[in-house]
């Protein structure tokens, strides 16, 4: 079970337990929610009562039910964006690191320029041009992260590309795709893994921030970030309507980051900071 070695460190174990708990709540929540998430069932912004342990939101909807429904969007959107970022970034990084000529210089200069642009502004520019939609959000966040993935993968690949077994495969006349997939990918996997937690955390932050700004998911969706945004003015009447989703987003990102950090340590790498 060397794959789960990270879970044996105390912080890794705590982080993993927390992560499983939050993911379970987000994915299973809709099945146990007592009320429909988008129907008013009481007076707006009342505090907790017997039937409504977290009170109601600014439209009189059940906060508990909305919280139970509202985690899926963050997880799914951030997850999809992260996977897409890895597919894009790893492909670019592997080929750039393997084929270190024109492609390398070109792709990496492109990555440098992409990194000199504030990510949130990038997303807002895309939203202005393409309108607010879930697919724009996912692709945008993936495009923000892909250059970072590409850089790490390229460095790791370039280290491996000069090794004997790669040169042997080249001498055997194997195709580039086969070399990349069979010889390089397994050897750069640790470098990729060490970074996953950080990338996922960052995806969550970006997705949640855009939703918070009202430029991602639109009402009446239940989404933790959107809940905080739309209930800001009702804060003094029912603080729980802000506290519950804020605490859950915090727990989620802290858990992901802690697990990512533990994985990086178990692979013998210190984790890098989020940009």
């Amino acid at each position: 079970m060397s794959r789960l070695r990270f879970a044996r460190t105390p912080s890794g174990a705590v982080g993993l337990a927390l992560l499983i708990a939050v993911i379970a709540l987000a994915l299973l929540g809709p099945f146990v929610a007592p009320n429909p998430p988008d129907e008013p069932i009481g007076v707006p912004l009342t505090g907790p009562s017997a039937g409504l342990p977290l009170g109601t939101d600014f439209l009189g909807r059940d906060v508990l039910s909305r919280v139970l429904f509202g985690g899926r969007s963050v997880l799914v959107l951030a997850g999809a964006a992260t996977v897409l970022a890895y597919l894009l970034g790893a492909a670019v990084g592997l080929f750039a690191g393997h084929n270190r000529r024109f492609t390398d210089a070109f792709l990496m200069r492109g990555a440098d320029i992409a990194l000199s642009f504030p990510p949130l502004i990038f997303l807002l520019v895309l939203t202005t041009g393409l309108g607010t939609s879930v697919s724009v959000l996912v692709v945008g966040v993936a495009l923000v992260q892909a250059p970072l993935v590409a850089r790490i993968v390229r460095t790791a690949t370039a280290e491996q590309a000069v090794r004997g077994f790669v040169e042997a495969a080249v001498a055997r006349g194997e195709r580039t795709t086969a070399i990349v997939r069979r010889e390089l990918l397994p050897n750069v996997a640790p470098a990729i893994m060490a970074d996953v937690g950080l990338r996922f955390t960052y995806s969550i932050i970006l997705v949640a921030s855009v939703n918070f700004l009202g430029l991602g998911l639109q009402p009446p969706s239940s989404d933790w970030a959107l809940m905080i945004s739309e209930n800001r003015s009702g804060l003094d009447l029912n603080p729980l309507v802000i506290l519950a989703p804020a605490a859950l987003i915090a727990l989620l990102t802290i858990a992901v980051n802690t697990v990512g950090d533990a994985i990086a340590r178990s692979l013998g790498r210190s984790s890098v900071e989020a940009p």
Partner: protein
Amino acid sequence: MSAGAAAAETTRRPRSFPLLRFVILRILAGLVTLLVVSVFVFVGTEVLPGDAAGAVLGKNATPEQLAELRGQMGLDRPAAARYLDWLGGLVTGDLGNSASGYAEGSARPIWNEIEGPLVNSLTLALLAAVLMVPLSLVLGVLAAIRAGRSADHAISFTSLSVVSLPEFVIGSLLILVFFSWLGWFLPISLVPPGESPLANPSQLVLPVLTLLGASLAGSIRMVRAGMVQALDAEYVHMARLNGYRERLVVVRYALRNALAPAVQVIAQNLQYLVGGIIVIEYLFSYPGIGKELVDSVAIRDVREVQSIAILIAALYIAINIVADLIVVLLVPKLRTSL
């Protein structure tokens, strides 16, 4: 001329010019980057067929009305010409007119609309930066010299947790504590147009705290990492063996060498302040450039989005150049290898 003087001559001469060359090259590279960014911003905001004129007039506009407003806004010209116009305007400081102005039936220059917010945002960011730099150095160094002990654990754990939180979550939690619970500060920062945000400092406390929380954690961790490494270097051991007092060892030997990576991290975090301020301004309804940007995106005021985006990108790139310069000036090794 003796051999020694000749050697001194050759070592000294390439010292002053390469620095200037480095500066010029960095600025040129920055300008090229900005040009690429400007193409992206322009194309990115104008890819959809529906344009700003349509957004202003709504769905019930007649084709004649649309054509007339397009003519007024210059939207009937080819995209390349509009791009060059915009670029020329950026260079001369004329950003064009905002769509929200046209919506109200008048031509309002964008510059007039963003000038005040820009000053407000810079005030907020500067306040946060002035506090962030010394705090990250002090706390990072403190964690490093207490590495492995409880002070270090406390600082490291807190910063690892906070570094992963979205700004609006940090801000919301601060509001819950300082407004809902303690009742010390208001959750919104209203600055009347034309008034300095400093006129009412108490409403700046929460936005600045949020910005600090979001940016401090990362820089503390990096300063600590650099400092731990520097404290383990041979010259530090040597200095200790020579009997120097610990404070001298820390400040003069370790800190100076840990500073170079720290400057870059702090620059990264200043850039982050520039980006993170968008969300924080929106959260606190603070009338800054970030809130202005979000509002323009929401109503698809393309020209204003373009102008604000390019302004923020320029700031971002400028911070990077200045940081590189400071690093080169701080680290003699880099200066001579230019």
